[in-house]
C-alpha cells in the first residue's frame, strides 16, 4: 500500500490533536507516514504511534522555525519525490494551507482545502467532503491532476487510536536559498491558556457585542470554565479590543464546528454564522427576540445575558456537585 504523508503539527514537541485526526484519515487512503519538521521528534513518537503512524520522517533542522513556510513545502516535495505517496495531508491552519499551496505548485498537483471528511474514492483516489459557503452547501471534490494534497479542518474528523510502529526515519534536508527569502527575526508566543484550543474544543462559548465591555466579557470566560470549554468572540468584540483577534469566530476569523456552540450576546449576522453554523448543537442567549442567531439555535433564551448566564453557571455547578 502506498504511503500517505501527514505533516505533523506540534508545539514544543507536543503533538496537536489535529495530527491524530489526520493520521486517522491517512489510514483510509494508505499507510500513514508522519513528517516531523524540526527538532524533538523523539518526544512525539509515542503519540504518533498511538494513532497509527507506521513511520515518522524526521528532518531535524532549525531552518523550519527560521524561515516562513517555504522550507516545509520543500521538505514535503522532497519526500513526495522519494516516497511516491498516494496523498499528502496537512492541517487546515493558515500556515498549513500555505504549505499545501506551495507544494501543489511544486508538484503540479491539485490542492483541496478545508476538508471536513476524506474517504477512499471509488477510483482509488481520495474523495474530499467540504462544507462551502459557511456550511450551507456540502460538496464532494477530488484532485484530478497530480497527487492529492488535502488540508483538513481541525476538529472535523474524530481521531481513532491505532497501533503504528512510528519508526523514526531521518531525512537529510537543507532548504534552498529560494526558500529562505522570508526570515523570522523574532517570535512572540501568545499567552498559553489553560482552556482548550478554540479549534480543538468539544464545546465553545462565544461572546458578542451584548457583553458590553472587556469586563463584561468575563461572564463568557466564567461560563466557558464551568463547561470546560474554549472561548470564542465575535468580530464586534475583537474590533472593540475587548478580546484578542485570535479568538474571533467568523468569516474573517476562525471556523469552528464543535459539539456545542454557545452564542451569548451575539446577534448572529451572517459573517459570524459563516464561522460556526455547522456546530452540532447551538444554544443562544440574546435580549433581542429577532436576533438571527435564534434561527439556527437548537435552544435559545431571550433575555439579559447578565442574568441568564450567571444563573446557568450556578445550575451547572449545582449539577456537577450532585
Amino acid at each position, binding site marked *: 500500500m502506498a504511503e500517505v504523508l501527514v505533516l505533523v503539527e506540534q508545539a514544543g514537541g507536543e503533538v496537536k490533536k489535529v495530527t491524530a485526526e489526520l493520521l486517522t484519515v491517512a489510514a483510509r487512503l494508505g499507510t500513514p507516514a508522519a513528517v516531523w519538521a524540526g527538532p524533538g521528534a523523539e518526544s512525539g513518537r509515542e503519540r504518533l504511534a498511538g494513532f497509527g503512524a507506521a513511520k515518522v520522517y524526521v528532518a531535524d533542522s532549525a531552518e523550519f522555525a527560521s524561515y516562513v513556510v517555504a522550507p516545509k513545502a520543500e521538505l514535503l516535495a522532497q519526500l513526495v519525490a522519494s516516497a511516491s505517496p498516494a496523498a499528502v495531508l496537512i492541517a487546515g491552519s493558515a500556515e498549513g494551507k500555505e504549505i499545501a499551496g*506551495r507544494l501543489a505548485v511544486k508538484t503540479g498537483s*491539485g490542492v483541496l482545502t478545508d476538508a471536513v471528511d476524506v474517504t477512499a474514492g471509488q477510483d482509488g483516489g481520495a474523495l474530499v467532503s467540504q462544507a462551502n459557503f459557511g456550511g450551507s452547501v456540502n*460538496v464532494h471534490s477530488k484532485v484530478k491532476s497530480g497527487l492529492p494534497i488535502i488540508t483538513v479542518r481541525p476538529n472535523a474528523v474524530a481521531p481513532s487510536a491505532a497501533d503504528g510502529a512510528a519508526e523514526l526515519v531521518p531525512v537529510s534536508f537543507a532548504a534552498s536559498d529560494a526558500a529562505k527569502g522570508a526570515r523570522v527575526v523574532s517570535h512572540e508566543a501568545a499567552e498559553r491558556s489553560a482552556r482548550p484550543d478554540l479549534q480543538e474544543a468539544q464545546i465553545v462559548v462565544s461572546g458578542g457585542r451584548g457583553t458590553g465591555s472587556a469586563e463584561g466579557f468575563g461572564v463568557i470566560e466564567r461560563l466557558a470554565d464551568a463547561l470546560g470549554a474554549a472561548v470564542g468572540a465575535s468580530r464586534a468584540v475583537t474590533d472593540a479590543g475587548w478580546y484578542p483577534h485570535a479568538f474571533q469566530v467568523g468569516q*474573517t476569523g476562525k471556523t469552528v464546528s464543535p459539539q456545542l456552540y454557545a452564542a451569548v450576546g451575539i446577534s448572529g449576522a451572517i459573517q459570524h454564522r459563516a464561522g460556526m453554523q455547522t456546530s452540532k448543537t447551538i*444554544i443562544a442567549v440574546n435580549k433581542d427576540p429577532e436576533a438571527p442567531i435564534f434561527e439556527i439555535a*437548537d435552544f*435559545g433564551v431571550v*433575555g439579559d445575558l447578565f442574568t441568564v448566564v450567571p444563573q446557568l453557571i450556578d445550575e451547572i455547578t449545582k449539577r456537577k456537585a450532585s
Partner: protein
Amino acid sequence: MNIVVLVKQVPDTESERKLVPGAGTLDRAAADGLINELDEYAIEEGLRIAGAHGGEVTIMSMGPAKAAESIRKALSMGADKAVHVLDDGLAGSDALATSAVLAAALGAVGFDLVIAGSESTDARTGVLPAMLAERLGVPQLTQASKVDISGTSVTVRRVSDDGFDVVEASLPAVISVVEKINEPRYPSFKGIMAAKKKPVQTLTLAGLGIPAEAAGLAGSATQVCDFAARPPRAAGVIVKDEGDGGVKAAAFLAERKFI
C-alpha cells in the same frame, strides 16, 4: 515603488450563493458582486505604502466582465491604474490554474510588491498568495498585521495561532494582509469621479501566452464531483427568560448530555 494589489470580486455573503449544476463552479452571475473584504485592507495598505514611500498602486483582478465594477471601486479608493485579466477561458479555474495566470500577469506587468488579502470569502482556500510567491520565486510575507518598508527591505508582523513572528525580506515580495492591519478608507466623491478616467488594461490568455488547456475548468487540477444544499437546521426551542432562563438552559444541556 511599483505596488500591485490583487483584488477579487466575490458574491455578497448576504446573498444566496450557488454552485452551477454539473460543473459545480460558483455561479458568479447569480449574486451581487463586491470587492472581497480582505482585499480592501490590501488596497488600503498599498495606498499607505505608496503615500509614505512614493510609487504607484496598480489594481490587478482576474475575473469575468462584471469584475470591472470592483476594479473601478478599487480605483476610486485612490489606486492609479488597473489590469483586468479577462477571458472566457478562465471561468472555472481552480487555485492552481488561477495562480499560474496571475503569476504570468504579474510577470508581464512587473512589481516591487504584491499585496493581497489573505483569503477570499467565496472559496476561502487561502492558498493564492503563497502559490504566487512560489511561482514568482520571491519571498512570502503572509498573514501580515503590520508592514514596514525601509529601502528595499520589508518587515511584517505575521500572525499565527500561537502568537506572531516578525519576518523580514528583501523586495520584491508577496504580502498578504489580515483584517487587523488597518482601516480601509472610504472612496471620496472626488476619488469616484477620478476613477472613471483611470486606465484599465485588459489582458487575455493569448496575450499572456497561456494555452487554453492550462486555464479554466480544463486547466484545473481539482474538480467538484457533486454537491447538495445542506438540509436546514430543524427549528429549535426558544424561551423567554422569566427568572428561570438559565435553569431551562441548564436542563437542555443536561438532556443533551453536555453537563
